[in-house]
Structures are given as C-alpha cells and as structure tokens.
C-alpha cells in the first residue's frame, strides 16, 4: 500500500524578515492522494503550500532553510523554477482568470511553453474543460471574456488552465472559501475525480471539507506540524490534545 513519496521536506524553516513563519517542518506527501492542511489562520499552512511551487520567491524579505524534495530533488537549490511550476500547478483562493477570453485563459500556459499548433491547442483546451467539468457550460462561448463567468465557473476555469499544463501536482489554497455551497460541492467532487490523475494538496478552513475529500490531513499550529496522518484517524481519535481541541472547536 505504501505509495510513492511526491514531496518530502527535511526540517524546513521559513522567515519573513526576522519573523519565523515555519519551524522545522518534516512532512512526506504521497502521490495521487488528496492531502489537506488545516489549522487556525496565520499558522503557516498557506506559506508552506506556496513553498512547494516557490511562489514565496515573489516576496522580497523571505528566507528559507532546510530541504524540500520533489521526486527526490531539492527544489530550494538552483533548479529551473519555470519548469517546476509547469509540473506543480496552483489554484488560488480568489478566482483570478486573466482579462482575456476563456480559450485564451486556458491556452495561456501551453502558449508560454511554446506550443503554437492550433489543433493541438483546441484539443488541449477541450480536454482540460471536460476534466474541469466546465465544458458543457462554456463550449459555445469560448471566445467570450472569462470575467463574465460566475465565481464557481471562474474557479473551475482556473483549475482547467492548470490542468492544461499537464502538471503532476495541483496545489489549492482555500479554493472554495470565496464560493457558495453549490459551487463548493461541484469543486469538491471534481477534486475526488482528479485525484486519480494528480497529487492534490489543499489548504482549507473547513474541517468538514477536509474530512470529505482528503486521504491524509496535517494540522498546522504556530508554524509547526502538530499532527499528520490518515484523515479518519485525525478526525476520530487524534493523538495530540491540541488537535482534538481544534477539531472540536474548543479554541480558535
């Protein structure tokens, strides 16, 4: 049953200036599984997620120590960040489609990698939209502006354009916190379908969501991983008292 390890961090520390946001994180994330990160806001779960595709590089005062192994290779070293991001896609909290047409949005990533052939692009766009369960709703207005779609549709569009990159991992930073329950349900069952092709790592505030869709859950608190294990185990009898207090809602 032991699955292949996709990400493996070795005492990973992260500092914003002199504030330490992550304290010696050691975590192994398995392939083709949904791993959820939960914890109070400001506990560093999003910061850790953004380390996995080096999005934290955009922030000037960030300093990272320790290793993050992706398929055994440390991504903190001087690796090609562009290539890393084509293999590790990311979906953000607030849907952020580009102010272009639906087609252009999805074709954006492959075009940046140099794919020019029209027919291949069309096929890729259609496949991605089908995989993102959005094809039926937009198939006849592909060249309309993406900004005209609803919140839920926009988020699925972002998922579709990430899929179009054929990544191995999809990171999701609270993808449904800005969506209504119906759209959230659609995204959740989409994720359960996607997990057979991609490793999914999701940060979420809602523990019900973590319970429903994730195989493993990690509980973050004050920059540390308090507990990490199979989701049913974490939610029924957590080993650490702090996890139990958080899950039962005794503290913030």
């Amino acid at each position, binding site marked *: 049953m032991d699955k292949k390890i996709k990400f493996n961090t070795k005492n990973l520390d992260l500092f914003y200036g002199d504030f330490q946001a992550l304290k010696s994180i050691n975590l192994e994330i398995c392939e083709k599984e949904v791993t959820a990160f939960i914890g109070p806001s400001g506990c560093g779960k999003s910061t850790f997620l953004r380390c996995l*595709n080096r*999005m934290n590089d955009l922030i000037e005062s960030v300093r990272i120590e320790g290793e993050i192994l992706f398929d055994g290779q440390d991504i903190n070293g001087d690796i090609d960040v562009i290539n890393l*991001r*084509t293999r590790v896609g990311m979906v*953000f909290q607030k849907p952020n489609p*580009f102010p272009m047409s639906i087609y252009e949005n999805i074709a954006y*990533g492959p075009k940046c990698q140099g794919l020019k052939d029209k027919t291949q692009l069309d096929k890729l766009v259609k496949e991605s939209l089908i995989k993102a369960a959005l094809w039926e709703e937009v198939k006849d207005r592909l060249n309309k502006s993406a900004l005209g779609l609803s919140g839920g549709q926009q988020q699925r569009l972002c998922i579709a354009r990430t899929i179009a990159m054929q990544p191995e991992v999809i990171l999701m930073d609270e993808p449904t916190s800005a969506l209504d329950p119906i759209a959230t349900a659609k995204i959740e069952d989409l994720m359960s379908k996607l997990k057979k092709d991609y490793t999914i790592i999701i940060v979420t505030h809602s523990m019900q969501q973590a319970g429903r869709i994730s195989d493993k859950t990690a509980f973050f608190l004050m920059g540390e991983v308090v507990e990490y294990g199979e989701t049913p185990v974490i939610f029924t009898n957590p080993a650490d008292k702090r996890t139990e207090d958080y899950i039962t809602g005794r503290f913030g």
Partner: protein
Amino acid sequence: MEAIKRKKLRERIIENIFLLCACVAVISLLAITFFVFYNGLAPFVSNSYSLWSFLTGVEWRPGSNMYGIFYMIVGSVLATFGAILIGVPVAILTAVFIAEMAGSRAGKVIRFAVELLAGIPSVLYGVFGLGIIVPYVLKISPMAQGESLLATVFVLAIMILPTVVSISETSLSAVPKEYREGSYALGASKIQTIFRVVLPAAKSGIMTGVILGIGRAIGETMAVMLVCGNPIAGIPTSLFSQIRPLTTNIALEMGYASGVHQELLYSTGVVLFVFIMIINFAVNRIVKTKVGN
C-alpha cells in the same frame, strides 16, 4: 426655533456661495472656449478671408494678406508624430521597469527622477535644445542651420517622457497582483507575464498616458519656438527642414498683430483647440470602454 432658522439661513447662504464659485469657474472655462471660437471664426463668417485658403495655404505673409497654415499643421503633426515615435516606447518600457522590475528602493529613486523631469518648465527644455540639440543637428544636417524638425522632435520626445512614464506606471501598478501570481503559477516567466498579462491589462491606462503626451506635444510653445526655425512658408520636406508649428505662430505674432491678422491668429488657436478636443474625446472614449468591459 430662532437658532434653527438662523442655522438654515447660514446653510443656504454658504450653499449659494459654493454655487457662485462653481458658476464663476464654469463661466470662465466656457468663456475661453466661446472667446477663441468667436474671434477665430469671425474672419470666415464675414468672409474677409476664405477658410479654404487659410487651411490649405502654404505661405504665411501677413504683409501681403497671405495667411496659409497648412504647412504649419503639417509641421505640428510631423513633430508630434516624431516625438511619439521616439518618446512613447522608451517611456512605456521605463514604466515597466519601475512598476515591475525595479526593487522598491530603485523604483522610488527613478520615480522621483521622472517626477523631477515632469516638473522642469518647458522653457528649460528649449534652452537645452538651443544649447545642445541645435548645434548637434547643425553638424549632421545638410542644411546650413540647426533649427529643424529633427531638433523639435528631440525636444518634444524628451518632454512627453515624464507624462507617459508616470501615467503608464500608475496604471501598471494598478494591475491586480493576482494576475501576476496566476501567470507565474502557470509557469510563465517574468518577461512573459509582463508582456502577455500585465501590459494588456493596463492597456487603457497606458493609452490615456500616450494621448495626454500627444496633447502636451501639440500644445508646446516656448521650448519649440527656440528650436524650430519658424519659417514663413514651406511644407517640411526632410527631417532637417525648418517648421513653424501652430502654437509658435500664435506666440510669435500675437504681440503686434491687429485686424484680420490678429483674428487669423485666433483661427490658428481654433484649429489647435479642435485638435485638443479630438484628443480629449479619444481619451474619454478609451477610458469609458475600459470601464465598460
């Protein structure tokens, strides 16, 4: 009751003062428009000079009642077009550097430098043009004098740099951070993100900057007067031939013109006014379409 009535009265009085100020402000603005058009169109209405020969004439000899400004329009348009050709690309790329690539400290320093460039009065650009550009153009020009279309284009290009840079830079930094993150997350490089996402998103802001730059270039008088040569006739045939833009024609002769000559200077003002109105209309149209989609 008395206090309330007095308070109400005070309110009304001050509101009327505001209204008065608004009216005076508006009247003075409209007065100029009306004044220029009234005086500018008078010679044609009383047909003491034909509009057609005014707009198409290529010689300006007030002494012998010849007032043609076509060669001036060509001069103004060529000078402005040249300035845009050189100034706008440089300005937009500088704005990209400040907004996207410079660190916060370097960005601040360059932004201050550009603001300083914008603050310098246009006369000093003219003095710079007279001191450096005209002698330089004289060296490389087949003609015998440095004052020329080329010198004017250089001076105007330098002058519109700050306007276009500062407006483009503000609209570039107004592009939401999420677009950049989205693009990076899809494996696009910094340059690709800038040229494929950020620039298109800030297009209308940049267009506004460019159009205001054009407005300033067409409207410039003092700096241009020192470097353009002000010939009395002749459509510019080469970069080195002299030009007399519309604005300098007014400034040169307004002091001593009288009668029809003076009215036709107002008409030159009307032509300029119409140019600017068209430009401002374009600005509003673009800003509206930006808000629209």
